[in-house]
Structures are given as structure tokens and as C-alpha cells.
């Protein structure tokens, strides 16, 4: 009897153990041990990006039969949450996509490996590349570039009996006036849409001779902030843009619900890679213009923004293979001919020349625009860690101003205090 009951206990224990291990196996993802190097590549985006990425991964695996790449995909809204959790759990993907504001966070906290000499970068745009260089370590390789610019619907402007502005000389006042006239012409068309995008503030500050970030603190002055909010306030007052409540709804709605996207607006500031989405959503022909300027500004303040970066986790077990994958993504025409401009316009001159004709019409337009303004562009540096929080703070305090919950003076102080604390934190 004692024998049998002991057996019983062992049976149960074994069963329990079996259940546990099989649960564990499910969690870990069943992988056949094929002797291949397993890489994980995390990225965010739309379904179409996922499809393209799966294709490009397949191509890479064809060329490198000893490496298996597993895509780790999520939408942008919770991308960083998932990524931070994985890094905290010592389970960081080998290759991680990070955009410029997250870069400071991850590089500054020792989560990234130095890629200098591991990825060929000679043909890449050196300015964009420099943005991935922090504390003289090349932590990140840009996937492509965008420019923050003014998008206008020429047909709508002309229908309101207004002239399409000369973007080489136009000022912020010109824009506000134009918006006011277009809105006043009726037809439910709004002349302009504003936003809280720090890229806009950065350009505006540069035109006034200031930097948004100056090293590890904010470089923008209270006066510049107040002038910037002044544009928002004037747009609301003159009805050049929708009111504050409507605007904050529109901003949350993104490309598809924006006035330009729904063909109910004439002008708005967007990243150049959003031209495609806006064109598709509105069914209209949209034009890229230079940003308006501060009177007597000596620079356009515009810059090429790396749309995203490829990085390798500091703790990756296969840094060489990870670097190889990144090299393929940015330097191989085969990769570019699949991805095209999905991750920004490629900055590799040779790759670009090879795929230029395959690019859709809107991308050709963007490319022409970027080429045209290239000589006027300012260099770009990665913002310090905490930049993601600064974006949220800017949004919140700008809302306080446009809803008249506070004075611009108080808001400027509050923004600088909170933003500097976020960077220092």
C-alpha cells in the first residue's frame, strides 16, 4: 500500500511537472533547434508595413541561410511599453527599431550596442547618420528620412480665390492671413490646422536662432514659446483653424480625420512621409511647401529627420548577425526595392538611384522636394533622454494655452520647468 500511494504521489507530481513544462514551452514559443542563429527584430507600424517587412525578412534569410529572423510587430501606441518591458525582463529583441526621441532614452541608459564599423555607412546620408551618434558612439543607423513641411491643397486655395504662397518668402503672418481668408470664403473649408508637434517648435525656434534642445536641457526661450503659442491663438481667433476643442479632436484623429485628409482643409504641417497617406485619404493632389518663416530669419530651420533607426541590443547574443541584418536593410537594393519609402526615403545614394523609378508618384514628389530644399536644411541631433515625455508636456501645456486655462507667461515657465525636470530625471 505504501508503495502504491507513493507511486500515486509521484504520478501526480510528474503530471503537474508535465503541465508546467508544457505551459512553459508555449510561452517560450516552440522553436525547432535547427542550428541556425535566431534573431528577433522589433518594429511598429501598419499592416502593410508588416507585410513588406515579412517579405524583406524572407529575402534576407534567402541570402543568409544560417540566420533566422523573427519579426516582432506591434502598433506604435504601445510599442515602447512592450519594448521597455522586454528590455527590463532581459529579453530585448536583437534588432530594435527606435525613433529619434526614444533613441536618447535607450542609448543614455546603456541598452544599445555601438555599431561603428559593424555596418557599412559610407553611402548613407551623413547628416542623418550623425543623428544616430550619441557620445561619439554610433548606436543607431537611420532607415530613411523625412522632412516636416507645409502641405497644401492648391485646388482648395484657388477655389477660395487666394493665391498659393511663394514658399521661399512667406512668413507665419502670411500663413495666418491666408488661413483666415480661406476659412472666411465659406464652404465649410478650414484654412489651416495647427498641431502640437515639437518639430514645428524646433523649426520655429531655429528661425529665431534658438535650439529646441541645447545639450541636456531645453534651449528654447520663453519668448519663443509665447510667440509660437501666439500663432495657435491667432489661428483660433481669426477662425483660420477650427477652435481649440475641435482641433484637439482632429489632432487625436491623425491623418485620416485631419482636414487635409478629409478634404475640408487647405493647409497643414505634416511629415513628408505622410504625404502618401493624406493623398490617399483625401483623393486630392497635395503639394509640399517650405515652412513659413519668422520675419528676417536667416535659416529655414527645416531639417531631415531620420524616420526611424535600427539599433542592436547591448545584450544581444548575436551582435554580428544583427549588424548584418541592419546592413542588408539599409545597403542592399533588394531590400530597398521591397521596402521603398515605407521607413522613410532611403538615404543610401546608391540604393536610391537603383530604386528611384519604382517609387510611387508621391514619393518622387517628396524626393524632388527634399532635393530642392537640401541646401537650406539644418543639421539634426538626437534629443536627450526624456524627449518622449517632453512631447507629452508640450502637448498638455499647449492645450492649457489654447483653452485659455493659463497665461502664456505662466505656461512658458511651467513648460521649461517640467521639461527640464523630465530630461534631468
Amino acid at each position, binding site marked *: 500500500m505504501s508503495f502504491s500511494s507513493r507511486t500515486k504521489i509521484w*504520478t501526480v507530481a510528474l503530471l503537474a511537472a508535465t503541465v508546467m513544462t508544457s505551459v512553459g514551452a508555449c510561452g517560450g514559443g516552440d522553436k525547432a533547434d535547427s542550428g541556425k542563429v535566431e534573431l528577433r527584430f522589433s518594429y511598429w507600424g501598419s499592416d502593410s508595413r508588416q507585410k513588406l517587412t515579412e517579405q524583406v525578412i524572407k529575402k534576407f534569410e534567402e541570402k543568409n541561410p544560417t540566420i533566422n529572423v523573427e519579426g516582432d510587430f506591434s502598433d506604435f501606441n504601445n510599442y515602447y511599453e512592450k519594448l521597455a518591458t522586454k528590455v527590463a525582463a532581459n529579453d530585448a529583441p536583437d534588432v530594435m527599431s527606435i525613433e529619434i526621441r526614444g533613441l536618447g532614452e535607450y542609448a543614455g541608459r546603456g541598452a544599445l550596442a555601438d555599431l561603428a564599423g559593424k555596418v557599412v555607412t559610407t553611402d548613407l546620408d551623413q547628416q542623418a547618420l550623425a543623428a544616430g551618434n550619441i557620445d561619439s558612439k554610433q548606436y543607431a543607423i537611420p532607415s530613411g528620412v523625412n522632412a516636416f513641411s507645409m502641405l497644401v491643397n492648391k485646388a482648395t486655395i484657388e477655389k477660395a480665390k487666394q493665391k498659393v504662397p511663394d514658399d521661399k518668402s512667406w512668413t507665419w503672418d502670411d500663413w495666418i492671413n491666408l488661413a483666415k481668408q480661406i476659412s472666411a470664403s465659406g464652404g465649410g473649408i478650414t484654412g489651416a490646422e495647427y498641431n502640437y508637434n515639437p518639430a514645428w517648435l524646433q523649426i520655429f525656434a531655429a528661425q529665431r536662432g534658438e535650439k529646441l534642445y541645447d545639450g541636456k536641457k531645453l534651449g528654447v526661450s520663453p519668448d519663443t514659446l509665447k510667440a509660437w503659442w501666439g500663432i495657435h491663438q491667432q489661428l483660433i481667433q481669426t477662425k483660420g483653424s477650427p477652435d481649440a476643442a475641435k482641433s484637439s*479632436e482632429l489632432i487625436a484623429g491623425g491623418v485620416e480625420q485631419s482636414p487635409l485628409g478629409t478634404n475640408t482643409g487647405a493647409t497643414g504641417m505634416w511629415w513628408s512621409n505622410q504625404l502618401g497617406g493624406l493623398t490617399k485619404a483625401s483623393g486630392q493632389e497635395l503639394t509640399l511647401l517650405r515652412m513659413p518663416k519668422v520675419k528676417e530669419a536667416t535659416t529655414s530651420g527645416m531639417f531631415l529627420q531620420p524616420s526611424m533607426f535600427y539599433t542592436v541590443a547591448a545584450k544581444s547574443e548575436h551582435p554580428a548577425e544583427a549588424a548584418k541584418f541592419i546592413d542588408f536593410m539599409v545597403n542592399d537594393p533588394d531590400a530597398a526595392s521591397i521596402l521603398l519609402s515605407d521607413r522613410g526615403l532611403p538615404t543610401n545614394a546608391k540604393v536610391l538611384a537603383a530604386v528611384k523609378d519604382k517609387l510611387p508618384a508621391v514619393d518622387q514628389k517628396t524626393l524632388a522636394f527634399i532635393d530642392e530644399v537640401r541646401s537650406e536644411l539644418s543639421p539634426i541631433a538626437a534629443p536627450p533622454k526624456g524627449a518622449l515625455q517632453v512631447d507629452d508636456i508640450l502637448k498638455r501645456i499647449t492645450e492649457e494655452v489654447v483653452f485659455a486655462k493659463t497665461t502664456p507667461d505662466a505656461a512658458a515657465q511651467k513648460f521649461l520647468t517640467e521639461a527640464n525636470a523630465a530630461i534631468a530625471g
Partner: protein
Amino acid sequence: MSDSIAVTPAPRRAHAKPPGARRAKPVNAHKRREARTAYLFLAPWFLGLLVITVGPILASLYLSFTDFNMLETAKWIGLDNYAKMFTEDTRFLTSLKVTTIYVVVSVPLQLAFALGLALALDRGLRGLSFYRSIYYLPSLLGGSVAIAILWRKLFGSDGLVNALLDVFGIQGAGWVSDPNTALGTLILLHVWTFGAPMVIFLAGLRQIPQSYYEAAQVDGAGKLRQFRSITLPLLTPIIFFNLVLEVIKSFQSFTQSFIVSSGTGGPVDSTLFYTLYLYLKGFKSYDMGYAAAMAWVLLLIIAGLTGVNFLASKYWVFYGDTK
């Protein structure tokens, strides 16, 4: 698989008990063995409890005393997180204020609404169970993402509510995007989920003996008097139960404000619920230590409120048997 476990031991036991063999064995030992077997079967669940619940709770207590950004190892900073909350962090106080307003306004409104409908439904309506289900539905859906999105659409500046107001010539605002009205829409959403307390009220109403009302009627008491002197006092334990439950639940509301404000607590922090701010601190500011400390403060707040509720209940809750 569980079948085989349950079935096999039985015949074995029969085999293992040949007549006369070790029959003297004390019953205790047998019981102990059975207990051991039971614990062994329970082991997976216990392990789950330890790993998935108790472990993280203790870890969060530890983390609440540290500076932890998830990318680097946690640094012990003692009570700094707690001190910061009440001295420096104005957004923390804002979130407390917003949540308190939300709870104080929406819970009584919701309970009053639930009680009113329960009274209406208690009149022996035909198809009662149908109405009960219909009214209960929002309680199941109210905390969901889909309803929060629906709310955003309903109360948006081009939403249904404004279209309706437009019929009467009223120019509506962007209810969810205006800092003055955004919290109001969330309170309305909470009131709308009156179904769960309503069902409990209904059950409570059924417990009140009909003879009390008959006696009161004979004494000439009107409807209002009957409600005040019979229904309400006898229902106080139910009201108390609902109150405690709803206060706890609404203090922890998250989804509504997360979705309606697109995860920001905006406009201008007007819908910054406590839990939303906790989430923003942890996952947007990478300040996990602070977020953990906030979670513990929330626990204390809720425990405190529930305690106060219980203490106060002595003065107004009437249990029939404690006369």
C-alpha cells in the same frame, strides 16, 4: 486527462487493500497522506498564486521604495517616491482631485438612478427579466474599450449628441475635447452602467415582506411615506453594499479616460484618473518605482475609504436583526 487521474486510483486502492494487511495503520496517517495528495494537486495553483500574484505584489512594494526605470537596475531611495507625491508633484494632486470628483459625483448619481429604476421595475412588470437584462447590459459593456470609443464618437463635435442638439437649434461643443465638459461625459458613462447595482437593488426589494406595506396602508401611509419608512430603511444594507462596491470600482476606473482622452488624461488633465496617471508614470515616463508607490497609495486610499464607509455605516445602515 483529468479523467484518468480520477479513475485510476480507485481500483488500485482496492487492490492495495488485501484483507488483513496492515489494517492497524492509524487513520491519521491516511488522512495526512490524503492531505498531501490534495496539496500536490493544488500545487500548480499555489505556484501560480505565488508567481503571478503574491510575487508581483511584494516586488511592487519593494519597487515603490526605489528609483526604477526598467532599463537599469532599481536604486533604493527610501520614502522619496512617497514624499514627492505629496510635496512636488502637482499632477498627482490633479489626478487625485479628478478621481475624487468623479467618484463623489458619479457614484451617488448612479446609485440613485439604479434604485429609481429598480423601484420602477419592481412593480411586477410584464417581461421583467427582459428589461432587467437590457438594463444590465451597460454594466457589462461600460468598462470596455468599444463603449469608450462609442462615447468619444457620441460626444465628439460632429457626434450624435451635437446632431441632436442641432435639431433644437443649439450649437453643441466638442464635449470630450473641451476641458470643462470632458469629465462630465465620463461621469455620464459611469452613471449609464447602473445595471449591476440595479439588479442587486431589485433582489433587495424582493426581500421586503409585502405585509409591511399592507400594514402601512391600513395605517393610511401614502406611497412616499411607505418608501421613506419601509423601503429605504430596509434597503440600507443593500445600498451600503452597492456603495462600497461602486466606490472601490470607480476609484480604479481606467479604460474610460484612457480611451476617451487617447491615453493622455487630456484635455488639460481634465480626465486624468489616478490609475491613468499611474500608467503614464510607469510606462511613458519609465518611472516604475514611482508608479509602484502610487499603486500602494491607491490601495491605502481605497482601504481607508472602505474603512470609513464601514464605520459610518453604524449610523445609517439598518439591519433588521439588530433592533
